[in-house]
């Protein structure tokens, strides 16, 4: 009987242990939730985050059938979406393929030459663009580089298309193809390549004017003739120049081509350049062009009294970042189209802002703060290898340059690495008092102690480098709980 009781107790214990292990592992194991309680599809998460109305399994989503990642192809739009679960794709009427990076024939990219423009897209997308814009396409699968594709876009030949309307000889500036359509439709039209409608020799009713306009998709300010046709780039010195109103002048041969600011705010030249910081816009009353209502508007920005060029990005010295104080964060500012936008880098100083300049043009980026491997380095060269990590060598220790931030309210104990322990050795002779012998820079108050303010500062510097640790204020200057360093002292008598 006693033996039976022992067996039963033993079994209960075994079952108990088994259940405890199961419960503990259930909390630790990552599940593939088909849907999480917060509404996310196909997420690897803790079991308690899974929506129980949907499937879940104690494995990663890559290993499940219901959350297999692949490529979702939109057969109508011709677009491909990477990293899409099969179910989500199918539910949205997409075509799913088992290639998360979309390496499938339907998604193979080529150069889609459409009108005067080019797009690096799939063939289906190219056809879709053709139907959307009503333009003929030329798909070049042999061009496999986006930049090459964009460079291969060529403008259609344009010129004066002269025809008769209401018993008058009139003209429209258009492409050769468009004019050919008129001719094919039976109209008595003639095309003159690279000739403007205002050319006197054409004998049309279109004449030069001093009116100007902006053209959609172009940066420059253009003259307009009396028929409303766009002529050459606005150049006040050539407003009455017959030759300038006769032939097409390329923007590269037009006025102000050497101007480094893209003729921003020029009253005389409309050869704007977006990449140099100007584009065609309606002129303000205070800054009118010599002729017409449009001007090359300056796209630069002013921020805190400083001038920034269009396209410049820079790091801002936000509160507390100099000391990487708790709560501080790096920010990148961007100047585009006269607007300054703020881009916060990842919080908790997970990213830092780094800035360079090429011939005075500032360029900044939020980059990952690579501090995680600092503490494991014992070699100075390895520690200071900036390609791999952002660390510094302080007093024989490798510590982060940019102290990371902690969500200390949820992740206590992360300052453990910054807690330094030293053994201070004292000696006492038969006659005399205790005397410090080793690590005397860390002891306090006894004979032989050499601890100074510098030591305290050094130790605090090491400690604070590990994160939101040590004696610090927060980013708005409020002092933390620690007001003096605590160095634990252990006395050891030899």
């Amino acid at each position: 009987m006693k033996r039976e009781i022992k067996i039963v107790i033993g079994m209960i214990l075994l079952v108990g242990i088994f259940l405890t292990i199961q419960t503990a592992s259930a909390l630790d194991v990552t599940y593939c939730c088909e849907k999480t309680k917060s509404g996310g599809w196909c997420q690897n998460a803790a079991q308690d985050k899974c929506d129980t109305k949907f499937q879940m399994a104690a494995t990663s989503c890559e290993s499940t059938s219901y959350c297999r990642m692949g490529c979702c192809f939109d057969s109508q739009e011709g677009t491909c979406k990477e990293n899409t679960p099969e179910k989500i794709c199918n539910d949205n009427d997409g075509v799913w393929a088992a290639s998360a990076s979309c390496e499938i024939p339907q998604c193979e990219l080529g150069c889609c030459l459409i009108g005067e423009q080019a797009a690096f897209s799939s063939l289906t997308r190219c056809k879709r663009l053709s139907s959307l814009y009503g333009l003929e396409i030329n798909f070049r699968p042999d061009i496999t580089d986006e930049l090459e594709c964009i460079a291969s876009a060529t403008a259609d030949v344009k010129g004066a298309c002269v025809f008769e309307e209401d018993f008058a000889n009139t003209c429209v500036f258009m492409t050769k193809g468009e004019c050919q359509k008129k001719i094919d439709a039976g109209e008595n039209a003639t095309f003159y390549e690279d000739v403007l409608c205002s050319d006197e020799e054409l004998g049309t009713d279109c004449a030069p004017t001093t009116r100007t306009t902006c053209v959609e998709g172009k940066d420059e300010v253009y003259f307009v003739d009396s028929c409303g046709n766009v002529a050459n780039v606005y150049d006040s010195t050539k407003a009455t120049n017959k030759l300038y109103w006769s032939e097409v002048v390329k923007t590269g041969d037009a006025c102000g081509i050497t101007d480094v600011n893209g003729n921003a705010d020029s009253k005389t030249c409309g050869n704007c350049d977006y990449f140099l910081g100007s584009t065609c816009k309606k002129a303000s009353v205070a800054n009118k062009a010599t002729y017409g209502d449009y001007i090359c508007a300056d796209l630069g920005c002013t921020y805190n009294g400083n001038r920034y060029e269009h396209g410049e990005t820079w790091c801002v010295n936000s509160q507390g970042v100099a000391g990487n104080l708790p709560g501080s964060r790096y920010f990148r500012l961007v100047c585009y189209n006269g607007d300054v936008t703020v881009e916060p880098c990842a919080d908790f100083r997970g990213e830092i802002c780094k800035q360079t300049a090429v011939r005075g043009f500032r360029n900044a980026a939020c980059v990952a703060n690579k501090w995680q491997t600092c503490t494991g380095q014992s070699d100075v060269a390895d520690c200071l290898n900036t390609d791999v990590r952002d660390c510094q060598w302080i007093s024989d220790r490798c510590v982060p340059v940019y102290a990371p931030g902690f969500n200390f309210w949820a992740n206590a104990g992360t300052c453990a690495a910054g807690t330094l322990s030293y053994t201070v050795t004292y000696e006492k002779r038969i006659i005399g008092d205790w005397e410090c012998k080793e690590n005397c820079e860390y002891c306090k108050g006894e004979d032989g102690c050499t601890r100074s303010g510098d030591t305290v500062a050094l130790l605090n510097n090491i400690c604070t480098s590990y994160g939101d640790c040590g004696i610090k204020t927060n980013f708005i200057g409020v002092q933390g709980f620690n007001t003096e360093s605590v160095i634990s002292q252990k006395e050891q008598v030899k």
Partner: protein
Amino acid sequence: MEERRGKKAQVTIFIIVAIIVVVAGILIYIFLPEIKGALGVEAESPSVILENCLASKEIGDNIEVIARQGGYMEPEHYILYQGEKIEYLCYSEEYYRTCVMQQPMLKKHIEKEIQASIADDVKQCFDDLKNDYERQGYDVNLGAGDIGVELLPQRIVLTFNKALTLTRGETKSYPTTKVILNNNLYELVSIADSILSWEAVAGDVETTTYMDYYHNLKVEKLKQGDGSTIYILTDRNTGDKLQFASRSVALPPGYGLDGVTYEK
């Protein structure tokens, strides 16, 4: 005495004339469609009437709300940003992992959302349209049918596949009625698609690349404390906006220091 009486009569006449004018005005206002019909004035086309009606119902506001909430009228999986719910279109619960696409067919989805959000207003507008024509003396036959919404470059086309037949002497048939709204949502959705693809593959996007390509586009990237990123795309010319959220390759706070000890 007689002069006084004459003045009184004049005032009375003025009052009567004023009352007649006011009453006539009200009657003309109320019976304007019938008067137009009786005079044989051609009625406005159904698409113009619908366009005006839908404009009065402010369906543009619905589209704006959908665009500001990541393409959803009622976001389900969202991040709160300045009081607005912004749907995650690509999301990873884990740190360091690229996101999983949550809405691979964004354009189609937005079209469905717009369709659902305007259905009641469209029904109301068709009822008004029917009444309007009937008051003008038309015999109106309105068939049943669905609403088609299509995002296209620089416009949103609403197609009402309800066959409408108007008879007043002659018969006019409108198998479908189209209303075109000026909106650049198509362009913004295309850019959002591209951003989401980068987020799913690389976990981040360089905003200036897009602003270099599209001169009228403003791209704002706002990283949040939990590793989420909110994107705000704005057409600088029209002010059209599309907002959406993503969480990809999120960096954890304080990771890596737990359990690390350093003794000398």
